[in-house]
């Protein structure tokens, strides 16, 4: 290699990553151009058009691509966004009082393989024994109708019913009473204001901190929403860039936690965050936001189980096949 590697890197705003973006933690021998746009646009343009060389992207989508043998994207096991999806499930409070009421109901999702939908279905199964076949799934846009056909994933069992929402968005269907619930990564404004004012549409889990705690203790996992990935082309030009990007993201993450621990400087203004982190550590381990593969086995195993139940991956796909290039280099 002669001179630093130049590439574009699309990533949203995260306190654990900001040091890489603003240059306080440089990526060694690299000249990244960072691009920040709304998340759906960054993800879409990376997957559909390869508009940038490195990108934050949906973890479920990344794993699904790897599982279907697509070799064109190489992942970095660093995780900008991790969330319990208890806060992605919105219900009509006139019909759904407890999660078990969803059995036999109609739930709107933006896409079968959407991360919030995959993790949402998984938690309904794990915590309330509601299987995918116990619900009728409506797939479509949140604010606009979706495409007329739904693509059934290759391994999806026949007993799962999926219907395309073609005349209205799922937001409108929910308000019209044609759905009991929606599982969406980002609530539309009408839903958000209804949740805030305790209107007709609410979060399934009124006490979501408690629901998240129970799920965390049951599964030991911290769901991954987003990973980082690069084009095969960039990787082929300089395979070691995988290690250098990972190293910078890991360093930035460590510096965040070092600042958080240095309580005498009061740089992070969250009262009693140490008490909160102690309860999280008791459930998922000392490192509460691990990167890499080893520290994330419980989360990966859970996600692969959910993706298998959703028919997105086949029975033979294993944890080792998610980040093989990284594991060979760094694992």
């Amino acid at each position: 290699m002669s001179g630093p590697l130049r590439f574009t890197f699309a990533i949203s705003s995260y306190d654990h990553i900001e040091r890489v973006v603003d240059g306080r933690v440089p990526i060694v021998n690299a000249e990244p151009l960072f691009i920040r746009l709304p998340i759906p646009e960054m993800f879409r343009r990376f997957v559909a058009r390869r508009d940038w060389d490195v990108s934050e992207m949906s973890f479920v989508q990344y794993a699904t691509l790897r599982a279907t043998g697509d070799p064109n994207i190489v992942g970095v096991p660093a995780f900008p966004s991790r969330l319990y999806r208890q806060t992605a499930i919105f219900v009509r409070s006139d019909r759904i009082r407890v999660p078990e009421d969803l059995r036999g109901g109609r739930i709107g999702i933006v896409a079968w393989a959407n991360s919030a939908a995959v993790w949402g279905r998984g938690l309904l199964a794990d915590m309330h024994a509601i299987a995918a076949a116990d619900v009728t799934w409506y797939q479509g846009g949140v604010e606009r109708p979706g495409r007329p056909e739904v693509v059934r994933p290759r391994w999806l069992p026949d007993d799962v019913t999926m219907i395309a929402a073609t005349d209205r968005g799922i937001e409108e269907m929910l308000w019209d009473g044609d759905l009991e619930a929606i599982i969406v990564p980002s609530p539309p404004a009408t839903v958000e204001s209804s949740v805030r004012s305790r209107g007709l549409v609410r979060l399934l889990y009124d006490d979501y901190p408690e629901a998240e705690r129970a799920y965390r203790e049951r599964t030991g996992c911290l769901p991954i929403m987003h990973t980082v990935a690069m084009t095969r082309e960039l990787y082929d030009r300089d395979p070691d860039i995988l290690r250098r990007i990972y190293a910078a993201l890991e360093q930035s993450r460590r510096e965040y936690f070092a600042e958080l621990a240095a309580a005498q400087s009061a740089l992070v203004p969250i009262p009693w965050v140490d008490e909160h982190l102690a309860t999280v550590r008791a459930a998922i381990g000392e490192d509460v936001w691990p990167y890499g593969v080893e520290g994330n086995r419980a989360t990966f195993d859970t996600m692969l189980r959910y993706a298998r139940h959703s028919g997105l991956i086949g029975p033979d796909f294993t944890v080792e096949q998610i980040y093989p290039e990284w594991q060979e280099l760094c694992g």
Partner: protein
Amino acid sequence: MSPAAVPVTVALPGYHHTAELVAGIVELAGMNPTFVAPPVAGAEIADLPLLDYVTRRLGGDDTMTAVPVFPARAFVLSWIHAAGDARRVTDPNPTATIYARGLLTDRGERVEAIAVAPRSAVRGIPGLQPLFDEPGEAERADYARTGVYPILSVIVVRTELLERERWLASNVFRAFEVARRRYFARLADIRGSRVPIPSVAGHVRGLRSVFGPDLGPYGLEPNRATMEAFVRYAAEQSVIAAPPDDVAELFADVEPFVDYTDGS
């Protein structure tokens, strides 16, 4: 930015709730700021330990005037250790030590040999015993009773600049308040994890039962009890001669913050 914007050097540690000011996402309206890490002599705007500011000001030095912005604060009962023989441990934050001694006195407890530092800072030092087994419970109970959320630092502005530009104090106040609110909105975001703390939105929501809807607001009135406790403690501990008649004397008068999120 207008070419006539007032150039200011701002000495500010890397507080996460002021990061959007430093990044230029939140504007210090009318100013052209250069951010530097403290300590910096000669900065027009600076983050100062509350103790330093109060002693200087009450000692007759009015070079700098505070705006009621309090970036660093912490509940400090968890910082208190019975020091045993290890009395030479330096307290890293003298402002926190004043609060700690004052709060202990108010609770009717003995305060002799204590060291005041976060547990993470003194882990492994022999002879130090945390005074409280469940400090969080004690801190919440104290806060519910007294309304004191210890203030460790305050934003100060060169007095001569405030006299020259009568709008500037309120603009500084507003910018810090907007950045603080935006930080807490990031914590509460259920769409993505803006900070790497699992379930942080739920943790912050739970804090409403302690603080009400706003968590650590700036401004004098919501912080009056905390400021009054500090100057009383400082006087009781002979750090200052006497508390001021009104803690408002320590601050520039600023326009209260109004959220015009829907307008411009």
